[in-house]
């Protein structure tokens, strides 16, 4: 039986080490780690989809273990230690069925079965992201560590190394602090946001290594960004609980999204729908509509939230087909009469009657599953 975990819209990783699945249509949040097995050193610090069909989630924890969560089964299936370097994970990606990890001290590692590829990308890394168009390319950036793009087939030298902007009017060096980055689809451009409240656009295809566009927003560090579905603007979140949409063609502020109480830790836009999900230290998951700036959903998730994954499912309303009436009944009906029409009719009736009951049984079963997951790793 397929688990209902597959139908969750948003997956959120918390500081207390809990992976939460949120079904926004049903307004239901489920913890996929048993409350008895919680440990703060297993706090989630990075997450990514394990495969393009979004049936697996890779969860990077504070204690350097990477766990594989299967949304089909609704539990953790594998766990492996990814040691080396220092600090917590600042990025996680998958390429050729091998995991790519990057830690704060700057060790970028590809975990292959035969041999691991290791690269030093420089200290103080804050973010590592994969290019969705070219999965062998990753970008890194951090504090006093300018943006670099690496090709994992030639990990010796970066294929693009950004240059810092010109010195300021006092002829002083401008500090570098890339907090988050993302590749623009359809071009080689990269957009980054910095701890000094700038949004920068780099273009590796042009001869200019300095940013081709710079915009500033607010006066507090920008912590997360995500491209909008049209890829012509970017949603940025700040440590002060401000979120805004910034146009990438002119570098102008388009609109602000409201409703935050604390720092935004992670932002993700839906690839097609005009929706943006964000989570942060104020323990709320919020889903805004980008077009009319409306707050569509607001879910309290009880812990400080570090990262989130939004499903790319097109049909948001897709719902778990209600588990059909118990199979034994169906068989009996089949035995009694072979009239397809009538069985369908009775089934539907049964479904409606069963509806609340079915949900109850599911809810009742959940703790059992959780126990199993806790026993697994």
């Amino acid at each position, binding site marked *: 039986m397929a688990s209902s975990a597959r139908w969750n819209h948003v997956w959120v990783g918390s500081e*207390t080490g809990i992976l939460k699945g949120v079904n926004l249509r049903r307004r239901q949040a489920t913890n996929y780690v048993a*409350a008895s097995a*919680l440990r703060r050193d297993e706090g989630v610090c990075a997450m990514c989809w394990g495969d393009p069909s979004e049936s697996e989630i890779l969860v990077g924890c504070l204690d350097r273990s990477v766990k594989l969560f299967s949304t089909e089964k609704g539990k953790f299936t594998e766990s492996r230690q990814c040691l080396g370097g220092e600090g917590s994970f600042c990025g996680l990606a998958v390429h050729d069925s091998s995991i790519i990890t990057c830690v704060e001290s700057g060790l970028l590692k590809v975990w292959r079965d035969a041999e691991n590829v290791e690269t030093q990308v420089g200290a103080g890394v804050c973010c590592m992201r994969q290019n969705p168009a070219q999965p062998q390319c990753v970008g890194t950036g951090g504090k006093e560590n300018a943006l670099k793009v690496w090709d994992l087939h030639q990990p010796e030298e970066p294929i693009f190394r950004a240059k810092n902007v010109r010195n300021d009017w006092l002829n002083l060096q401008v500090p570098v602090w890339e907090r988050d980055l993302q590749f623009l689809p359809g071009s080689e451009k990269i957009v980054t946001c910095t701890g000094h409240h700038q949004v920068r656009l780099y273009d590796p295809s042009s001869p200019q290594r300095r940013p081709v566009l710079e915009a500033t927003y607010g006066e507090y560090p920008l912590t997360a960004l995500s491209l909008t579905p049209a890829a012509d603007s970017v949603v940025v979140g700040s440590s*002060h609980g401000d979120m805004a949409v910034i146009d990438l063609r002119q570098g102008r502020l388009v609109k602000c999204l409201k409703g935050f*109480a*604390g*720092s935004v830790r992670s932002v993700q836009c839906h690839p097609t729908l005009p929706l943006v999900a964000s989570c942060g*230290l104020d323990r709320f998951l919020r889903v805004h509509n980008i077009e009319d700036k409306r707050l569509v959903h607001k879910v309290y998730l009880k812990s400080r939230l570090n990262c989130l994954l939004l499903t790319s499912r097109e049909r948001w309303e897709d719902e778990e087909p209600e588990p059909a009436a118990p199979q034994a009944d169906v068989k009996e009906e089949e035995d009694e009469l072979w009239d397809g029409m009538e069985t369908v009719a009775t089934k539907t009736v049964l479904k409606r009657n069963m509806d609340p009951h079915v949900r109850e049984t599911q809810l009742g079963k959940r703790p059992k599953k959780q126990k199993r997951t806790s026993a697994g790793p």
Partner: protein
Amino acid sequence: MCGLGSMASGAAGSAAGPGDAARAPDQALFPPGFSVSEIKNKQRRHFMFVRWKQQQRKDKLANKKKRKKEREALGDKAPPKPVPKTIENQRVYDETTVDPNDEEVAFDESTDEFAPYFNRQTVPKILITTSDRPRGRTVRFCEQLSTIIPNSHVYYRRGLALKRIIPQCISRDFTDLIVINEDRKIPNGLVLSHLPDGPTAHFRMSSVRLRKEIKRKGKAPTEHQPEVILNNFTTRLGHSIGRMFASLFPHDPQFIGRQVATFHNQRDYIFFRFHRYIFRSEKKVGIQELGPRFTLKLRSLQKGTFDSKFGEYEWIHKHREMDTSRRKFHL
């Protein structure tokens, strides 16, 4: 003149607005919706308004009397008195209200930054300082605060940056840092930072009364460790703030001192009072205030130690967005 006056009186008397009950019905000549404020003669308008006001009061008292009589007539069977509506009991439901049985929140709280204090691994040691060049009232307030909080030390700021003070505090095993800010000799802000790794809360402080300014105060407080009362910290944010205040005071109060420090939260304002109590008999308790007293309002809660520029905020009071309802409270 006279005719005009009588007309005006008739007009007001027939008014369907506030003045209708005051007049005899035979003068009702004016359209409904007419109110006293439409009378153009100021003297007349004032006169009519006073009369209307008196009538209102009379009606109210009569109603009250009537209700009381009915209640007396019913005796024991009288329906319970309706509870008055206040902003607090009409409060908008806050989904972050902490359920004591919630395992997840319990885990979160048992492993947060205050856990070492609540597990009795650390003993509170507090540094109290001020903004640069404090003036009289602020200095005296700091002194009085240090008599309330056991094991607290007042230091002169000496123009040092907070970011430079904090590592020194950590190396000297201080567990909390209190900074009193002042504006024109009046203390108006309080930064409370838990050490070694946060969080930092920033409060606005108002209504500071020093010991000298409190009437009917008791004798100066003794050295005993006071008891702590934390009232109405119900939401998740309130719990964090409450734990922060609790961790200022040592465990195991000395009940022989009979002193209580109270942090009372009402409508997001935190009232601090310091009392001495005495049990006069089995039923009667006497209290006297020892002072100082002040009121705090939370402005922000920041993760980590003080870093106003690059720090990450857990909660900020954004009054334009959050103060949309008078019945919404955050603590």
